[in-house]
């Protein structure tokens, strides 16, 4: 078939460029003991690369990896600096205006992280308290909307990044931290007083995490979607999940201990590229 778009570019350059995040545990991060990029979604990206090698008949396709951040990931995709990013980007309507999003590779849910002694067990306990969120996250927007609609007198603060948010929790400036469950678990791994904290509350939003690629490139998207769907239906995805979420992970060999959710099980059975914001 005639190649177009990204696949054609890859075939010509014999190179594919992946974007990675430096500390998005366990999706995509740098293993400080080996200085290599690892993670569940990064592994997904590498599977896609394998599929491309096969499709294009390029066994020695080169892979380049460049670090990206929340701010520049979209521009980097758009201007062709990177061809694919699989880092835990949530599929939202705004993003779909600028880029294409692949089949969902994981679904995460938002919950609360709190000190065991805080007396917070669910969203309703937040009344009159302070909750911290990470600036720019979808959970921030959800929390603001939630509080407004329920007319709660909850005080919301935005922290610059996850670890600052956790620091606010540690120093008692906030009673709870509202965020993706996986992020919360990963943060607890690093904390030395992890035993004092608990992830709690009824899961709120669902977030469909997907890979980003350039818009209007049906050939490439089809290939990416096919690869993701195949790994999910074949059971490979579940094995991968267990390796990253239920077993020791680098660099220190901690265990996240987050069993596969029903939503994810459902996704693995019926792969799709739907998002939860419609």
């Amino acid at each position: 078939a005639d190649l177009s778009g990204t696949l054609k570019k890859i075939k010509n350059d014999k190179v594919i460029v992946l974007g990675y995040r430096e500390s998005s545990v366990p999706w995509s991060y740098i293993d400080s003991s080996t200085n290599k990029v690892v993670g569940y979604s990064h592994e997904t990206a590498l599977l896609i690369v394998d599929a491309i090698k096969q499709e294009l008949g390029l066994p020695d396709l080169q892979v380049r990896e460049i670090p990206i951040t929340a701010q520049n990931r979209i521009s980097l995709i758009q201007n062709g600096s990177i061809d694919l990013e699989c880092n835990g980007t949530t599929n939202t309507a705004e993003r779909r205006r600028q880029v294409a999003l692949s089949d969902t590779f994981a679904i995460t849910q938002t919950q609360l992280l709190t000190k065991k002694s805080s007396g917070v067990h669910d969203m309703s306990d937040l009344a009159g308290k302070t909750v911290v969120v990470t600036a720019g996250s979808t959970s921030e927007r959800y929390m603001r909307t939630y509080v407004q609609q329920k007319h709660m007198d909850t005080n919301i603060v935005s922290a610059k990044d996850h670890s600052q948010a956790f620091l606010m929790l540690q120093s008692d400036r906030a009673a709870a931290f509202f965020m993706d469950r996986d992020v919360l678990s990963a943060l607890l791994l690093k904390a030395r007083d992890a035993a004092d904290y608990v992830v709690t509350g009824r899961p709120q939003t669902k977030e469909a995490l997907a890979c980003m690629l350039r818009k209007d490139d049906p050939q490439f998207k089809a290939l990416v979607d096919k690869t993701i769907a195949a790994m999910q239906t074949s059971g490979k995805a579940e094995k991968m999940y267990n390796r990253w979420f239920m077993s020791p992970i680098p660099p220190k060999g901690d265990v996240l201990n987050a069993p596969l959710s029903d939503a994810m099980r459902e996704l693995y059975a019926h792969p799709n590229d739907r998002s939860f914001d419609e």
Partner: protein
Amino acid sequence: MNYNWHWGVFFTEAIPGQTYLSWLLSGLGLTVSMGLCAWAIGLVLGSIVGVMRTAPNRWLAMFAAAYVEIFRNIPLLAQLFIWYFVVPELLPQAAHAWVVHLQPQPQQMLAGVLCLGMYTSARLAVQVSAGITSLPGGQRNAGLALGFTLVQTYRYVLLPMTFRIIIPPLTSEFMTVFKNSAVMSMIGMLELTAQGQQLVDYTSQPYESFTAVTMLYLLINMTALYVMRWIEKRVQIPGLVMGRR
């Protein structure tokens, strides 16, 4: 590049009842009010420390020099984090509890304004003392020779001229205060820069968002410049051409 421009994005709803424009404007308000508070602190402390630097008393001068060196030689960002994260930990128990149990926003505001105010005061102190020393040495002598005490000499002779002379550098310091307040975004204050970043995250329209924020900063700066020029004109002395930059 296949970018979807969407300038109307500012009028879309961020969360129910709030448009992105209203977010930007609240960021603008925070930037301006923090800048003004920090400026007030900086001007008062900076004048005092600046005068101390030129005082004939050695201990005063040394204290002032130490003050300036400390606040000038640590990056603003580091100072901010120290004010926010470290200082409360060093406070006595009771004060610590009081600070930590403040609402987070007042807490951030307190740390941010104190930090920026002290930092600005060190920079202003340098300008003030430079202004005083740039006056012809004879002015101090002329004041003293008329029988003024040292304090009167500063009050009636040296400072009125000093502040007129240093209006140009004060103008750029005044504009700098608003710019420096941008680091407050790093402790999670939703001032203008932080709102800009938030808009990028939420809307995926980085160019529109940053353009709007940049324009608002230009607006702040032009207003600041205009205000200072107005003051400069108000205090202009007939027959004296004071070099403007």
